[in-house]
């Protein structure tokens, strides 16, 4: 009888611990959610603003800054096109920002997981980031 009571009490304690851990985990994930949404918003608004600027400019002037149906395809060409205020290059810079947004989302979540001391998920996220960097490198080589 006493033993059963003691066991029940121990079980309740164990549950209380997991309960507290659960709450901690919930607050950790809330921090990550907040950081990720903030990053995504910044990325989307920045990309959309740059793309709209370039596109409206192109449509109004009818002049893209490059010969018909051509556009810069390297990072340096896009950058120098933007420096020369060529509309098509500006659009491409906006598209590049859009592509960068999910990658930045992974970076931001890595830092947030570290900050929240959720090391297991920090490792998982770091692994994703490393794989992404490898695939970028492979893409460039190929």
């Amino acid at each position, binding site marked *: 009888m006493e033993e059963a009571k003691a066991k029940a009490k121990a079980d309740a304690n164990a549950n209380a611990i997991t309960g507290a851990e659960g709450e901690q985990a919930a607050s950790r994930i809330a921090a990550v959610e907040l950081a990720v949404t903030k990053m995504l918003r910044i990325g*989307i608004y920045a990309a959309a603003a740059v793309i709209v600027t370039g596109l409206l400019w192109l449509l109004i002037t009818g002049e893209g800054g490059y010969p018909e149906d051509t556009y810069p*395809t390297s990072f340096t060409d896009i950058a120098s096109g933007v420096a020369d205020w060529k509309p098509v290059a500006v659009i491409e810079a906006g598209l*590049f920002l859009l*592509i960068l947004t999910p990658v930045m989302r992974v970076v931001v979540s890595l830092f947030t997981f570290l900050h929240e001391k959720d090391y297991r998920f920090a490792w*998982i996220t770091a692994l994703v980031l490393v794989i992404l960097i490898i*695939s970028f490198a492979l893409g460039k080589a190929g």
Partner: protein
Amino acid sequence: MTAEVIEIFLIAILAGVVGSILGLGGGIVVTPALTLLFGVDINHAIGASIISVIATSSGSAVAYIRDKITNIRVGMFLEVATTVGAITGAFLGAVIAPKFLYVIFAVLLLYSAYAMVKKASQEVPQNVPLHPIAQKLRLQGEYYDKALGETVAYNVDRVPQGFGVMYGAGVISGLLGIGSGSFKVMALDVFMKMPLKVSTATSNFMMGVTAAASAVIYLFRGDIDPVISAPVALGVLIGATVGSRLMQRMKSRTIRKLFIPVMIYVAAQMLYTGWRG
């Protein structure tokens, strides 16, 4: 040029709505629309559809994460599988004939379409056990279902199988250069038995990362035409914002009814490509 840009923009809004609701990224609308209606060649159409996938992913994630529909932990964990798969796929294409892969994946999709038909009347999954790995990684979760007006708590089952299918989804992305959203939804919904809304939102969330890796390659290869991709990006961002609000008010049963024919269509397309190739 202006008329064409506006037309592409309007179609892209539709693509964003459809993609964000079904977890597909919108390539399924953008690629055929550009090639068939605007005579864009396939490489530039795929380039634009990758932009569409990224725009859908980021655009819908804002609302889906805020409303806690997206399961970020599941998404992050499975991104390991999709990104490794994407690299494998890029190499596999050069090693073995993609023909067999197309057929295998098409059969897998048809099986899943069948599994989805069987649970067509089910609104949210019942009595799903919590897999030991899911417990260890705390993958289970809950969300507030606006259509049902109640909080739905859910477990996550068969993590290894889901991880395997996600790897396959990554291989397809690497091979075909697409987000392969239908496979991601299948892994989450059919294999891991998560609620359909959580599955499509999490699939959308994950898709941006896989697509970003190939997008950079496409950009430097010149396959992303800025004049076509700009209206696609803007339209899809608007469509995804609208779609991610619409979806929450829809019944899961309705979403499933829209999803099954899409799976059959994608499977048929893969069988055809495999057969021809």
